[in-house]
């Protein structure tokens, strides 16, 4: 018996001696899942991170925000990502599963109002109220005086307006309807904000490419698409009236200007549509990362927080490369503070 115990101790020691160095050398793999919106940014940034940090790889599955939140809550992934922060009910469910959740902004996206009007210039101007009226089905023709009055010298044809909106539930729709709710009391009471709302008029298309396809197919169509998509394709889009009354084109700078107006952004107060400031473009929104506040494995937790710290600071340079908007400096500080609250 005694020899047996000794033997097994020796054996255990040998095995441990073999295993531990292997484990230390083995790749650390982090798995994330969630929204499709940040995927182009994530895939670029995570690739760069694993190039700089040998042995760490981050895989991200773009399965949608809903899937991301449920996979995160089920603890099958290291972090989740969502276009809109988790709701109270979702947080309660997650807290019951594994304790507190930390949510931090990771990148910014803008939304362009694109249109197809034959003979019109590449950027026409629109008032915020007019935009809401178009999507409410009140302004139905491109020669409407409401449009003409802010576009002096531009001759718009008598052409019926066809509204094209996203049919798939999306963060893009959420930020857009959130904006319309702010600028139009009518929209707020009749439709409201949401990823999937009961649209008063128009046709629904699937994804940015679906809306863009609908636009290019239909003279007279107007719709909203992600800025990155509008910039990468040759699409006409609107200079939109902001809160200060200026007409601003969506761009990385104008969206960053809007976001920097609200440095105290948090998971419970996250809307950055219709911001003041003369250069602010009014329709934009953050993408959010979800992590557990209590990390089970200290070493692994440290690697994860290091990676996230990099993502919201140095990693932001990769956002611009895919036409996403880097976090403003003051928001990077907010994100770092959130990461700092994670216990390893």
């Amino acid at each position, binding site marked *: 018996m005694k020899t047996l115990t000794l033997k097994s101790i020796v054996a255990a020691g040998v095995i441990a001696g073999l295993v531990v160095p292997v484990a230390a050398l083995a790749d650390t793999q982090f798995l994330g899942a969630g*929204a*499709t919106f940040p995927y182009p940014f994530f895939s670029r940034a995570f690739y760069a991170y694993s190039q700089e940090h040998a042995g760490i790889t981050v895989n991200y599955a773009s*399965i*949608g*925000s*809903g*899937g991301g*939140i449920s996979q995160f809550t089920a603890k099958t992934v290291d972090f989740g990502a969502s*276009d809109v922060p*988790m*709701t109270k*009910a*979702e947080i309660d469910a997650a807290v019951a599963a594994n304790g507190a959740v930390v949510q931090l902004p990771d990148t910014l996206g803008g939304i362009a109002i694109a249109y197809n009007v034959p003979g019109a210039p590449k950027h026409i101007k629109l008032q915020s109220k007019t935009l809401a009226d178009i999507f409410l089905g009140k302004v139905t023709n491109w020669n409407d005086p409401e449009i003409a009055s802010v576009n002096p010298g531009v001759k718009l044809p008598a052409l*019926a307006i*066809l509204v094209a909106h996203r*049919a*798939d*539930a*999306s*963060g893009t729709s959420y930020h857009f309807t959130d904006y319309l709710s702010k600028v139009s009391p009518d929209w707020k009471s009749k439709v*409201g*904000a*949401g*990823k*999937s*709302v*009961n*649209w008063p008029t*128009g*046709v*629904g*298309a*699937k994804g940015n490419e*679906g809306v863009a*396809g*609908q636009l290019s*197919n*239909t003279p007279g169509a107007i719709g909203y698409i992600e800025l990155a998509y509008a910039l990468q394709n040759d699409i006409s889009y609107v200079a939109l009236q902001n809160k200060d009354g200026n007409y601003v084109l969506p761009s990385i700078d104008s969206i960053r200007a809007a976001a920097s107006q609200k440095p105290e952004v948090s998971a419970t107060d996250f809307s950055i549509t219709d911001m003041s400031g003369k250069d602010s473009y009014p329709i934009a929104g953050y993408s959010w990362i979800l992590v557990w506040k209590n990390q089970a494995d200290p070493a692994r937790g440290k690697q994860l927080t290091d990676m996230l710290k990099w993502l919201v600071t140095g990693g932001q340079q990769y956002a611009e490369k895919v036409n996403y908007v880097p976090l403003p400096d003051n928001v990077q500080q907010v994100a770092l503070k959130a990461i700092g609250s994670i216990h390893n």
Partner: protein
Amino acid sequence: MSQDSAELVTASPTAAARVARVHSSPVGDRVFMFLLYLSAWLVLAIVVALFLVLLQRSWPAISQVGLNAFTMLWDPGGGHFGVLTFIYGTIVTSAIALLVAGPIGIGAALFLAELAPRRLATPVAMLIELLAAVPSVVYGLWALFALTPAIRLFIGPSLQKTLGFLPAFQGPIYGVGFLAGGLVLAIMVVPTVAAISRDVFEAVPNDQREGMLALGATKWEMLTKAVLPFASSGVIGALVLGLGRALGEAMAVAMVIGNKPQIVASLFAPGYTMASVLANEFSEATGKVYISMLIEIGLLLFVVSLIVNVFARLLVWNASGRGSR
């Protein structure tokens, strides 16, 4: 493929007699019998399991939304989960698909099996079978960029000119809508119907044709009186399979139907189907009732498919005086 369909046609009521004979046979045969039974029951078990899981997952919605599901307003954010518009869209687009694809598919199959020279029939049949394998998202993209402009500029206006007195062909033409959804489904269903029907026609024994011709029948009479009745149950099988594809297709329809939940008479108007709302909203859906409601739509789609299939078979059985035999 051709053997499957041959069995469709020749499946005989003497199967029970054969089973009885097998019972007195050696071990190998028994093992084989057992495996066959197992596969048959497995299919049934999968269907039942599917139903049960759908039922279980949709229970939160069934208990909370209840009969309010059978209303018109779909507004998940506002807590309204009416699905009637989706059921309507699914039925209308599938009906268009079958009305268009049925005659074309059967006609093409008859031509290939009975009239076309071998040299032409074989490559064309291969092409048709290839079409059946094209992924639906490809059909959807093609429909979005080719079919919807064609509807807006040519098909729609000419339908409106000739049949505009019918409410189904009135109203503004956007391109996307019930008609676009139905037509893209029709294109997807044609290969299924044609490929299976052709195999069924080829399985019709030549005696049938020769007997008919010997009686002095024309080729047309031979086809309609000898070949079609003999093959009818197989052709119905082909149509039902095609209908199944139409009912369940999500992606291609989502791209061209306009995704507006409404019940209107005009086929030019945008609509929505059960499968496409699942494709559109499931990945981003958050909240227990919302997700559960989407699964309930899956359950309803399952039930609607079942009802439509049974109804279609009954209809055809009644019309043709209880099938071929």
